[in-house]
């Protein structure tokens, strides 16, 4: 079975949810610990949401210097799929695996909502299972989710098709170009602010037109990686 590691940092909150998502997608979740130098030979890596180290410096800044992050950087360079969700996205930018950064929401408050997104790029390790331009709904919950990058970087991301997810209907945190998630040039490293791991199980996801809490759009993010690994 394809094994996907989920790294737990002190202050990680959605690590259990990420493991459940991997299991429901058909993979084998593997617990990884921030203080180790060992990736346990996993096929892909998820950096989960939360408030690592209390986010007392900048979000994700201290986690980016955790022992295991050196291994993550090496693995990313080898092409191993890496997904950073929310706080994990912040870590990936702090570790310079992804460009730009995340700042406090423009309205100043934490926001939790069912967020409609467009899947802008399907040429990444984590979005291969979507149709280009497909609209999905996954929960969003953050206080510092405003994506920011200089104009050149944003233009490059847009030109190279590296904007992976874009907010629809409303930009919930003041992100530039409504950017919800981006990829590295190779497409194996993806970071996004919304939480696909919270839309994987009927009964516990966002509401849909068909039934309460039945949204499972996030499941395909994890399936995309599993299928990609199998095909490789």
């Amino acid at each position, binding site marked *: 079975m394809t094994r996907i590691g989920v790294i737990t940092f*002190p*202050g990680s*909150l*959605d690590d*259990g*949810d990420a493991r*459940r998502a991997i299991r429901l997608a058909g993979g084998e979740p593997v617990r990884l610990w921030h*203080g180790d130098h060992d990736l346990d030979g996993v096929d892909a890596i998820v950096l989960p*949401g*939360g*408030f690592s*180290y*209390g*986010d*007392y410096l900048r979000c994700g800044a201290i986690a980016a210097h955790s022992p295991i992050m050196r291994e993550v950087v090496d693995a990313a360079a080898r092409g191993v799929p890496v997904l950073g969700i929310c706080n994990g996205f912040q870590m990936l930018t702090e570790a310079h695996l992804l460009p730009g950064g995340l700042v406090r*929401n*423009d*309205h*100043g*408050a*934490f*926001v*939790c*909502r*069912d967020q409609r997104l467009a899947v802008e790029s399907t040429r990444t390790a984590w979005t291969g299972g979507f149709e280009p331009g497909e609209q999905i709904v996954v*929960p969003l*919950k953050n*206080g510092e989710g405003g994506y920011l990058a200089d104009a050149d970087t944003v233009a490059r991301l847009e030109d190279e098709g590296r904007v992976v997810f874009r907010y629809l209907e*409303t*930009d*919930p*945190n*003041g992100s530039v170009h409504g950017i919800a998630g981006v990829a590295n040039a190779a497409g194996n490293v993806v970071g996004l602010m919304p*939480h696909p*791991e*919270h839309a*994987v*199980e009927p*009964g*516990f996801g966002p*509401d849909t037109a068909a*039934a*309460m*809490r039945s949204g499972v759009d996030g499941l395909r993010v994890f399936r995309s990686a599993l299928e990609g690994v199998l095909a490789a």
Partner: protein
Amino acid sequence: MTLEQTVVDTVERARATPERQQAYAALGLTDDEYARIREILGRRPTSGELAMYSVMWSEHCSYKSSKKYLRRFGERVTDRMREHLMVGMGQNAGVVDVGRGWAVTFKVESHNHPSYVEPFQGAATGVGGIVRDIIAMGARPVAVMDQLRFGDLAEADTLRVVHGVVAGISFYGNCLGLPNIGGETVFDPVYQGNPLVNALCVGVLKHEDLRLANATGAGNLVVLFGARTGGDGIGGASILASDTFTASGPTKRPAVQVGDPFAEKVLIECCLELYAGGLVEAIQDLGAAGISCATSELAANGDGGMRIDLDAVLLRDPTLTAEEILMSESQERMMAVVAPERLEGFLAVTGRWDVETSVLGTVTETGRLEITWHGETIVDVDPATVAVDGPVYDRPVARPAGLDALQADSATGLPRPADGPAIAEQLRALIGSPNLADVGWITDQYDRYVLGNTALAFPDDAGMIRVDEESGLGVAIATDANGRYSELDPRAGAQLALAEAYRNVAVTGARPLAVTDCLNFGAPTNPEVMWQFAETVDGLSEACLALEVPVTGGNVSLYNQTGDRAIHPTPVVGVLGVIDDVAKRVPSGWQDDGLNLYLLGETALELDGSAWAQVVHGHLGGRPPAVRLEAERALAGLLAAGASEGLLAAAHDLSEGGLAATLVEGVLRFGVGARVWLDEVLERDGVDAATALFSESTARVLVAVPREEDVRFVGLCAGRRVPAIRLGVTDAESGMLEVQGLLTERIEDLRRIRWGVLPAALGARSTAAGS
């Protein structure tokens, strides 16, 4: 703080200087209480002992004014009520058996006074405190809820308090990774100078993981771990929570604690790993009264004594005196009892989580709690005299002088509209009033998804959490209180709070099982307040017995007043229910077209204390709606059966705002309209249209039933003798709520009215509209 502190006040010195004047009054102790302490000790207390007694004998920690009445909860219990009760009142939190080897622990607690002085930190540490109570039982915390009462939404100071409190809860709860699944928000001028911030936490555990916080086994080590001890929150329990605010406003800020949710999150994981590894005998949280409370409670609940070296406490501020260390309410600290041979394993776990730990002392056989400082004994007491056998007061009670006149002033005589346009206008006014408006401005700041087990959250009537992933076993929790009802009749008010919370759990399909309460009142020294309290406890315990749901624990918060003006009695009642499979839960609104809407229960002319009387007429008087506990029981049984058999597409209780508010909330839940007609209700119950729409008669629920289940559902109602009238049908095409012959409102207009109220007063956020 006026602790005279130049030389250390030892037990020896206390014996030698019996005449020394002690500033006990500044610590909140009365002359009699001080005399009693001298009598217990046979000498004057040391300043350290005085500090301990003063906080532990405070109203907040000792329940000295309320204890006499709280006993009734323990007395009015049948064997059937005990059947699911694993731990009752008196421990950190009650524990209920929910089946399949699982248990649930839950409790609601107040953090009112700190939240007024410093709204952000007060509310944040309120969450932190209740979560630690849950951990102390051996449980993993899985959800929180908050019960908030603020002053007039139009007042400038309300904005300060609301912004601070909501941000504090959001900051702390979100950072802990606990979903916030419900709660209450009420605005009323009576809370202007004394907002209520109550916090509820629920935790889950396997039966075998249950722990009690007792220090047993002489030779076992007493270990303090978590955050360092600092100067924050000194005297919080005695100075803040047990005194009234003066009209001159906030001045007590240094007594408020400061919270660090990251430290608490790490502490949770650390404690759970310690339990799982069998590395601790017991864990006690440090909350109000800090080390004083933890040591005396652990020792008093154990079988021996305890000896503590206060020099071993890790300090944030090295200049703290011994008394300050004993009284500090620094957050994110826990105390464990550890067998010596397991200390190494214990330290390995705390080390892994980077949690600072220090061994303070040992469990002894002496029956005494002895504390040393710089090599000298500064505390030598029987711990039970500190923690258990505090003073008990039988305070004077008096029925409020103006109550007869208030009850005689019924809302029945107020003009009620008869024509459609006037009724429609009042409906819009009601749903646009702060207490019936959409509270998304608040709840959108809370994470309701984390942990992946949230089956229901706001705006549904109860929060629901899956406990067991394999079977789908889950629990539902709802809390309610109506201060206006309680002001009119505290006995009925408490029973109505219970009835509403019970009903809100029942509409989700869960079976109500147990109760927690947070009794928020004015100053117990006011006989009229004490009468309200006595009536409340008596009424609530009586109703718990009638519904067969035991009170498992809770909290009393007194002195909620500004100057002479007490708040309305506000008994927040939380009911926990169990559901065999959360997949069978029922939402509060309908999503499909063509469902039959049934009104269950009967409507009487009961507008006293109602939202209608408040919003339309600015009126409070008369008698609250009749308490109908037998009808509530029958209704709950019907709803559980209906949900279990899959007959219910939606169920929503009727309470504040009556049928009108319930219909509006029902169509707004999923944006699916409805056509209803009132004729049959008017005829059967002999009421006018305005009464049918706005009366707050209890034991009523609106349900949506798929047409193919209609016959079975009607049969179920008849069999269980629950009055049911087919009120209308759902309509997915119209985009309207239509009450035939009276009003037709666009759903989008209703949504805009309800949504706009809080942002207009509190400031819009760019993201929220239309979510």
